[in-house]
């Protein structure tokens, strides 16, 4: 109870108008308390936007005053007659809630990060879009322009060597970041970056488009920062901290690649062992074959995949991890269900919206009726009727407002569903990484086997000639060298495959846990929200029912 009183006191300061009571209990708790249990928001980790939990206890002191508080507001017909401004006032207070919650959302990620590492903290804000001109080198005279965004990072992670950073980046830089991460962290569930949306940028109003993009970027970087592995990546750190041009290669250096992958492959692999991060050359095999540059490799891998599917015998190296296959299937099912629920959630939100709107229009119609009857009243019965209508109008307008707020909160909660659709995209990408890495291994194994059989044949042929066959022996030596290098490539590929498998496994565990927590909090939030608003709406109508009880049959 103490908690409640303090909460109410705090919030009384925040809102000056009479709407305070109404908006007071409407500040929903959008982000889950960290330990997953319903704690009162005295939680030191929850920050500025105050949360009020809708109490299960009906003797809530905050509840009962509210009808009384709001009614005086309606005692003058004028306040009823200008419902737009009344509603606007409420909407504004909600807007400020929303901004807070947007912050909370990005805090969400940092808070969830907090749950795993108690003192680590990274928060990214994007603001201040500026228009800049394309520098020299542009073919178009006069140059094209683009927008840059100010990216501010607050962190206490040790790798950053600092607590606050500001850089300017354009969207293209984000694409680069995303590409680099996808290459270096195959097998992880990497958040999907925002669309390039070329069409939208032409069609939408520029301000809207820039704002939409700003929000999307903020969300995206927030998700990267929330990922336990990616937040520590050099790519992200460099992106967030280094001023000026982003020091990440725009595409992997493939200028030196020749179409003949078999010749290039050994040279690249002679360079090093480690396949993670660092120089682009070493992990060539650890990269999926890229279109246009790796044609031969692509053809070989394609042939291998055909052999896998249609060949008479099973390939020598296959996906054997039953647990993984089961999980994969389950996730496919899950993806479908999520998509379905997400769709239904959208139409639920639309219908809630419509309900609120129509209720509001009904209220307005009764406001007009009240005014009319009051002005034209000749009989006492008319005055009584007008008084009844006023009550109905008041309640309807209030209920309409409550529906609108309920809906806004519902959107926030059910948004999790949409988010997980994005997560599933990332999961599918990670699974593709695994599949293509496996294919690379299989291809190399096939090559090795064919090389070895060629060597055998040559040896057999050569042994028949007395004293040996110079040219054949030379050939055998060459092939043996190729085999050795291919063997190394294969080992590298296998190591990469195993690495991706490990990544998959860890990520699946993380997904399970996070999914459980996220959905649980979504359900709670949704349910508490619905129950809370339903109660408020019930109270509103009960007042009117009481006032009109004299007419009951």
């Amino acid at each position, binding site marked *: 109870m103490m908690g409640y009183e303090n909460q109410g006191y705090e919030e009384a300061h925040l809102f000056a108008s009479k709407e305070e009571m109404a908006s007071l209990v409407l500040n929903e708790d959008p982000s889950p308390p960290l330990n997953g249990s319903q704690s009162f928001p005295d939680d030191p980790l929850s920050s500025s936007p105050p949360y009020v939990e809708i109490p299960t206890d009906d003797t809530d002191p905050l509840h009962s005053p509210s009808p009384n508080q709001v009614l005086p507001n309606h005692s003058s017909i004028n306040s009823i007659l200008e419902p737009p401004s009344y509603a606007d006032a409420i909407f504004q207070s909600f807007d400020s809630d929303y901004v807070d919650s947007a912050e909370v959302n990005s805090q969400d990620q940092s808070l969830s990060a907090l749950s795993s590492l108690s003192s680590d903290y990274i928060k990214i804000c994007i603001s201040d879009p500026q228009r800049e001109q394309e520098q020299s080198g542009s073919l178009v005279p006069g140059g094209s322009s683009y927008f840059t965004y100010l990216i501010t990072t607050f962190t206490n992670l040790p790798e950053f060597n600092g607590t606050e950073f500001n850089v300017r980046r354009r969207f293209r830089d984000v694409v680069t970041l995303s590409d680099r991460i996808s290459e270096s962290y195959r097998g992880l569930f990497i958040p999907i970056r925002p669309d390039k949306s070329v069409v939208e940028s032409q069609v939408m109003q520029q301000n809207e488009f820039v704002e939409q993009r700003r929000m999307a970027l903020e969300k995206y970087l927030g998700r990267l920062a929330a990922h336990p592995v990616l937040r520590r990546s050099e790519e992200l750190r460099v992106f967030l901290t280094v001023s000026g041009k982003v020091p990440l290669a725009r595409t992997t250096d493939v200028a030196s690649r020749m179409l003949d992958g078999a010749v290039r492959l050994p040279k690249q692999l002679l360079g090093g062992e480690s396949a993670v991060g660092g120089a682009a050359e070493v992990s060539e095999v650890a990269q999926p074959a890229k279109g246009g540059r790796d044609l031969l490799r692509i053809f070989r891998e394609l042939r291998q995949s055909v052999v896998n599917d249609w060949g008479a015998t099973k390939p020598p190296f296959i996906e054997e991890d039953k647990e993984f296959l089961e999980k994969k299937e389950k996730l496919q099912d899950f993806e479908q269900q999520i998509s379905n629920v997400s769709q239904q959630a959208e139409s639920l939100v639309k219908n809630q919206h419509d309900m609120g709107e129509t209720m509001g229009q*009904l209220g307005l119609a009764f406001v007009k009726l009240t005014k009319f009857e009051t002005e*034209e009243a000749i009989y006492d019965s008319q005055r009584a009727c007008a008084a009844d209508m006023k009550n109905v109008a008041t309640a309807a307008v209030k209920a309409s407002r409550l529906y609108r707020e309920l809906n806004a909160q519902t959107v926030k909660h059910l948004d999790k569903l949409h988010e997980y659709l994005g997560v599933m995209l990332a999961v599918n990408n990670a699974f593709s990484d695994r599949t293509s890495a496996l294919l690379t291994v299989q291809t190399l194994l096939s090559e090795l086997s064919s090389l070895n059989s060629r060597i055998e044949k040559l040896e057999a042929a050569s042994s028949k000639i007395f004293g040996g066959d110079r040219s054949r022996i030379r050939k055998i030596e060459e092939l043996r060298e190729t085999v050795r290098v291919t063997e190394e490539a294969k080992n590298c590929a296998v190591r990469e495959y195993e690495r991706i498998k490990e990544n998959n496994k860890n990520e699946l565990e993380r997904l399970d846990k996070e999914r459980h927590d996220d959905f649980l909090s979504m359900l709670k939030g949704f349910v508490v929200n619905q129950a809370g608003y339903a109660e408020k709406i*019930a109270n509103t109508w009960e007042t009117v029912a009481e006032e009109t009880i004299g007419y009951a049959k």
Partner: protein
Amino acid sequence: MNALQRSGSGSMAQTQSPRSPSSQAPYLTVSVTDPAKMGNGVQAYISYKVITKTNFPEYQGPEKIVIRRYSDFVWLRDRLFEKYKGIFIPPLPEKSTVEKFRFSAEFIEMRRQALDVFVNRIASHHELQQSEDLRTFLLADEQTMERSRSQETGIFKKKPADLMQIFKDVQSKVSDVVLGKEKPVEESNPEYEKQKNYIFQLEDHLAEAQKHAYRLVKRHRELGQSLSDFGKAVKLLGSCEGNSLGKAFSELGAKSEILSIKLQREAHHLLMNFEEPLKDYVRALQSIKATIAERANAFRHHCELGETIKFKEIDLNKLRLTRSEKLAEAEREYEQLKADGEESKRKFETIVKLMNEEIARFQEQKTIDMGVAFHEFAKGQAHLAKSIAEAWRSLLPKLETCSSS
């Protein structure tokens, strides 16, 4: 009929309980029930059971049941409108030619309720309840009813066209000056003008409120459907998810489906107990407009007679001077006209007096009926919202156990 009545009342006195009839308050209640589809195809119609319970002496018995159809109600309304000028005749539900064919259960129920309200309003109106036509309607067998009905259709067919004309006059926007004719004669009574304006504007306002009330009903249905679909989808997700969270989803889905049903029920309740009463009053106002037209009619008729009488007087004096043989006849006609003039004046004044009483009664009735409708509306919404809150709250303990696992 009189003999029957007397014997009816006589027999009633004998069959009455030991308490004398005068100590029991007179009552007349009617219920319209049991709609049944009759006939086939284009000629199909709905018949209703009309049950009358009364202790009025003219009614030959405490209870009577007859079968009536919509056109019988129309007949009753037309007869009352013709005979009781000045009184606001209760409105009938619309004559629909299209929906009738579909005969949806909801349409039938709405119509039945409106007809029930119609007859009861007549039965509780101190003047209308004495009407002989009402007695015919409530007591006559079906053949008699059909005969009466077909007799009247010829006379009343013109009515809609007449009323249209009169409405135009009442609104008085199209000026006959344009056509070169004088403006039709109208009362110049500012109070009455105000009342007329009130009626017209009230109709507009109520029609708008009713429109939104109808939409609100639809919204309830749509939200209900949406919750049902959502619930099903969530249940599927729950079974895919498995473990305690999956169960939580499944329960959420189940609750959604339950709430969907509640919403559908409230939609129906809202329709019958809030939207229909509003619609009923819109119709009532239209009926009042018809009475307004009747008053204008009576006024014009009275004025025209006045004019005619004046001219007749002039004629008469001319004839007196010329000592024509036609004088006697003309004098007779003149006296007749004067009597007619008195009659039309009396009729007009009756209408005015009745209308004044009716307006007061209308306002009182409206306050009560609207009050009931508002109460039902608020009760329904409160009840619905409460069940929604309860349903969602009941999930919370289950979600608690999930998080601890």
